[in-house]
């Protein structure tokens, strides 16, 4: 079983997390567990709180109540870069790339955490800096091969097609060598073909690299197909947490989605 993958306990534990903006409750008493190497999804109608939850886990928001543990360590309150250093990486719903940089530089930034050279090493291009920089490039090369990004190596990412930009973002996240990868609506705006490729990529990441993946679900068909477990959020609360087959038949889930579906029949479950 996956649970035994890391030896001791869950990888990520979200305990009774609430998040309020003024009088609005974005998250209410959310509990969630991710085990090492697991592939799970967090889904819910628009505005259910998926992105808020991701922002809490990665340190961009501070929960107003509750705790978040990663590898047994409390991480709420830490800055986002410290949390990244502990091994959580993410992508964003509306691509957040370094648009003036090339694909290569975007991925190299993902290696920032692994640079063992300081400011003065960089300023005077010491041997230590050269060694480090070359080592990071080697690692980035492997990721570019895996994601098939070699052809756009020196292209500015702003000039890449949308689907490709999403892939660069995944590459940058992978370059940090995370233990947990949060993908926020990775297939939004992708063509069917790109979505099919993405499924392979996510499976590769999870199975070959052994990284736990949490998918902020957008495309329900894809989520049902690849997730080992699904957590459903509705208006900031967890309303279901089970394997896809059970979640699919849960009346509370159907009800939460139907409200939206009635207005938007194009979105199929």
């Amino acid at each position: 079983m996956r649970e035994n993958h890391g030896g001791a306990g869950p990888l990520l534990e979200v305990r009774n997390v609430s998040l309020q903006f003024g009088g609005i409750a974005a998250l209410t008493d959310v509990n969630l567990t991710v085990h090492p190497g697991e592939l799970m999804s967090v889904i819910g109608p628009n505005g259910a709180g998926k992105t808020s939850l991701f922002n809490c886990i990665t340190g961009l928001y501070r929960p107003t109540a509750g705790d978040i543990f990663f590898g047994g360590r409390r991480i709420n309150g830490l800055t986002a870069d410290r949390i990244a250093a502990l091994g959580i990486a993410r992508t964003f719903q509306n691509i957040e790339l370094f648009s003036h940089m090339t694909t290569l530089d975007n991925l190299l930034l993902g290696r920032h955490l692994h640079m063992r050279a300081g400011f003065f090493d960089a300023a005077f291009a010491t041997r230590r800096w050269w060694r480090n920089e070359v080592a990071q490039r080697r690692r980035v090369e492997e990721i570019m091969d895996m994601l098939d990004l070699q052809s756009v190596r020196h292209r500015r990412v702003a000039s890449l097609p949308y689907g490709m930009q999403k892939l660069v973002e995944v590459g940058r996240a992978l370059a940090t060598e995370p233990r947990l990868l949060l993908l926020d609506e990775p297939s939004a705006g992708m063509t069917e073909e790109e979505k099919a490729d993405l499924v392979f990529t996510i499976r590769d990441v999870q199975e070959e690299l052994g990284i736990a993946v949490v998918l902020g679900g957008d495309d329900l068909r894809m989520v049902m197909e690849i997730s080992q477990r699904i957590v459903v959020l509705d208006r900031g609360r967890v309303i279901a947490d089970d394997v896809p087959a059970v979640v699919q038949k849960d009346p509370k889930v159907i009800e939460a989605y139907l409200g939206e579906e009635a207005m938007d029949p194009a979105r199929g479950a």
Partner: protein
Amino acid sequence: MTQLIQRYEEEMALVRGGAAWTGLVLLLGALAALPWLLPGYYVYILNFVGINVIVAIGLNLLVGYTGQISLGHVGFVAIGAYAATHFIRATEASGVVAALGGPFWMAVFIGGAAAAVFGVLVGLPAIRLEGPYLTIVTLGFGLAVQQILINWPAVSGGRIGMFVPQPALGSFVLGSDRSLYYLVWTVVIGMSLVAFNLTRSHVGRAFIAIRDSDIAAEVTGVNLKYYKTLAFAVSAFYAGAAGALLAYVMQYLEPTMFNLYESIYYLAMVVVGGLGTIPGAMFGAVLLTLLQYGLSHAQEYLPVIYGGIVILVMALEPMGLYGRWLKIKLWMKTWPM
């Protein structure tokens, strides 16, 4: 001819290929020969060009790379100039300093270091403030430095101003414009090299990342607090070192030299040359400084002309002169397509 790159080191090199090396050697040769070919006054002007190149490179690291606008860079230049001058005057008599080859190279470093300390102080609010709010902090800083100097005669020499001793290497005095030229441009070359090194490294990448998307930079592991403050410190170091050189070249300091206009001119150099590229900052500094001296008979129109140039460049080529040059180069490469 582009050659196939076989090692990462080749891709990372600052100067790539024979043509680039030839160009660089020619440029350095021209820089070394210029003071022997030009009349004295022009050498004097070239010293100011070099000083402004240093400020512009430093300012570009902050504005062009990290995306934080400073309207108070003259404050760092002033701090560098006064710190260096006080250091020189205090240590002139010291035997230890003389044995190390005279205070002049240390003065440049001390000017930079003093400004860098203030850079950190001004940079600290940068963690919480963004955009125009931060710009106003820097504006206030630049104005405050000048006011403090005006009202603190012990530091600035009051109405009389302050004279700067000439730099000396042992018993050899660097008094002439020509010898100062070599001092200024040696520092220009050294600090340019450091800037190129920084911008191709993880430090430069972190700067650009903060500019393009600070939240993505943060969740990818860039410590925003550290890098935003670092950008200010490095930028201020460049301005302070330039200030120390300015003191040597001017041989005289008074607070009115360090007014708001100077900060705006520095910014204009960076914008006209090209934000976010080091050659751009160099282009802009050279062009606008030469313009300033070329128009020395029409000083009162200078702000208008500068303003006009900035508007024109922004309207026609937002990537600045260097951006236009890169486009021309690309066009020639692909010609006659």
